[in-house]
């Protein structure tokens, strides 16, 4: 998840938590507030009744509620009050919730119970108010709150998404520049427009680093060129001398054979230097990538090239092309070398017996194109499998100088391709080259 989405989700998450906490506590709080409000009203009414008794005496109020035994109810049974004379001396004052039957209906009331004495007479007063109304108000409040909060969350999400995008846009531009930069010399050094100092610093630092990398690569290229010149010129001199000696009719056959052997040794040195130079050049992006070609055609070409050797060994090279792919922005000559080296390696390590099979396959598999080259040779122990792409690896893995597969690896990397091998001792080896396909 990128930073922008992460920020949006994070901001939404924190708001969500607050909303949930509020929603969980709101009913309780609203109830407390409502009850407190109701209690104040009841107390207020109690004071009015007491004042009325003090001024007018209790008779009117007592006779008023004699109409019903259960006290006098206001219209719609939302409120009631009950005043009784009593002989008891005990006084109390409390508010409780209690239910009553009114018109065959059970109704919850908030009831103020008050016992008081006026002129030596003890009165028992009950004033109640129906909780139905309170609960209804509470429900309405919760519904309104819920709607408002939902709207708030939606608005916050949209607002956050827009502002976060606006704030992180420079960062996205910087990462996009890096994504599209295949090598330091291709980096876009135009500064990203931003008022955020951190991004400005980041952009500037990356740009500076790219300049430094470019400089280092250029130096490395120069060193490679110089070393190659220094090494290859003397080899060239010796090679020419030896070749002229072979062509000299005045020297004996025995000497010619010795010279030829020297030439072979010299050639080994030449191949090592050239292979190392090739790897260095590939790693330094000194090759063009402007060819477009069919992988199947290339595989057929490579297979045709090597099959005479396979046939000589009694091997069969089988091609299984499930589908074709036209590789663009690639270097055909390098890709030829890559596939040639791997197929050659497979043929070289196949059992030298009639009926051996080397399989060359290609096709699509879950959004990537693959080429596999499998042999039925000796395979190798798992611990050595990771060594095969290294330069000058340990002896025992392969004869030769061990640069053929290192070259293959550098070419695969150059084309942003993955190269793996699957092998077990005695079970053959499969090389797999794959790359993502849109």
């Amino acid at each position, binding site marked *: 998840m990128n930073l922008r989405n992460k920020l949006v989700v994070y901001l939404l998450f924190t708001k969500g938590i607050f909303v949930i906490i509020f929603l969980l506590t709101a009913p309780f709080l609203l109830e407390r507030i409502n009850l407190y409000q109701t209690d104040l009203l009841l107390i207020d009414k109690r004071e009015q009744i007491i004042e009325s008794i003090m001024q007018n005496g209790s008779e009117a109020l007592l006779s008023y509620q004699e109409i019903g035994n259960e006290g006098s109810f206001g219209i719609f049974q939302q409120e009631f009050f009950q005043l009784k004379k009593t002989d008891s001396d005990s006084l109390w004052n409390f508010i409780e919730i209690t239910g009553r039957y009114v018109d065959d209906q059970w109704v919850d009331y908030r009831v103020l119970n008050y016992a008081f004495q006026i002129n030596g007479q003890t009165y028992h007063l009950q004033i109640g108010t129906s909780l139905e109304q309170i609960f209804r108000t509470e429900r309405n409040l919760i519904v309104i709150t819920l709607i408002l909060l939902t709207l708030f969350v939606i608005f916050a999400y949209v607002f956050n998404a827009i502002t976060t995008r606006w704030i992180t846009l420079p960062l996205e531009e910087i990462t996009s520049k890096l994504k599209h930069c295949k090598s330091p010399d291709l980096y876009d050094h135009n500064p990203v427009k931003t008022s955020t100092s951190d991004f400005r610093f980041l952009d500037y630092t990356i740009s500076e680093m790219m300049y430094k990398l470019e400089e280092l690569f250029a130096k490395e*290229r120069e060193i490679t*060129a110089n070393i*190659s*010149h220094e*090494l*290859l*010129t003397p*080899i*060239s*001199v010796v*090679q*020419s*001398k030896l*070749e*002229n000696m*072979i*062509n000299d009719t005045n020297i004996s*056959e025995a000497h*010619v*054979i010795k010279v*030829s*052997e020297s*030439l*072979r040794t010299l*050639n*080994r040195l*030449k*191949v*090592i230097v*050239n*292979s190392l*130079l*090739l790897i260095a*050049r590939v790693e330094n992006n*000194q*090759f*063009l990538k402007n060819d477009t070609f069919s992988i199947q055609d290339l595989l057929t070409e490579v297979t*045709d*090239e090597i099959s*005479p*050797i396979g046939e*000589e060994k009694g091997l069969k090279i089988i091609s299984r092309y499930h589908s074709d792919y036209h590789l663009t922005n690639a270097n055909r000559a390098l890709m030829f*070398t890559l596939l*040639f*080296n791997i197929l*050659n390696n497979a043929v*070289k390590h196949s059992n030298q017996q009639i009926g051996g099979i080397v399989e060359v396959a290609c096709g699509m598999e879950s959004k990537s194109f693959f080429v596999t080259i499998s042999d039925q040779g000796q395979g190798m122990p798992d611990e050595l499998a990771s060594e095969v792409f290294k330069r000058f690896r340990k002896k025992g893995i392969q004869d*030769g*100088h*061990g*640069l*053929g597969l290192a*070259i293959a690896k550098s070419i695969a990397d150059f084309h942003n391709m993955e190269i793996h091998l699957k092998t077990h001792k005695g079970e053959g080896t499969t090389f797999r080259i794959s790359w993502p396909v849109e």
Partner: protein
Amino acid sequence: MNVLIVEDEDSLAGEMATFLRNEQYLVEVVHQGKLASEKISVNLYDFILLDLCLPDYEGLQLLHEAREAGNEAAIIILTARGDVSDRIRGLDLGADDYIAKPFSLNELHSRMNAVARRKFGIKGNIIGFGEFSMDLLQKKVFHQNQQVELTKRQFDLLHYLLINKNRALTRMQLYEHIWGNSLDDDYDSNFIDVHIKNLRKKLAQHGPVDWLDTVRGIGYRVSLD
């Protein structure tokens, strides 16, 4: 043919000169760019073999000057730098071919032949050998008007041996000519043996191939009068 070798490495220039003189070329050698520049402007050469790394002169500059002055010699660049951009620049400036050091003298000879044929239209396009003939334009081999079916590699190998006739070619020289010098480290493989074996088999179906010798300890040779 007149050849000017511009190469600062004395012994390499010497060996090239020896080899080419044996091939009946008239050879001059210079080790410095300045001297080379003078010689190129005064004399007419058919070939200039030009090393790019000269102590006193930029090889590409020399090439540029020669072409600016209307010099039509076949110019083959010799260099150990092998940088792709150098190569492209060289060819852009009018070089006819490019050969990377270290190269085999036989390979140089083969390239010079190809350039000469292309540039000067000489040496004919048909090479006769034994009872066979090779048509370089069609890239086909015939035995008394009947075509011998050869693969591209077999044709290339035979052609290379024919250009360097009467000279023993080592397996790695042949390998390098066909597959370049950085394809694989497997120079000791029997690639060449297999291809020669198949080539012999195909040719033998039509006529005698006693002119294609295996040279013990070295490689192969086409022996023709």
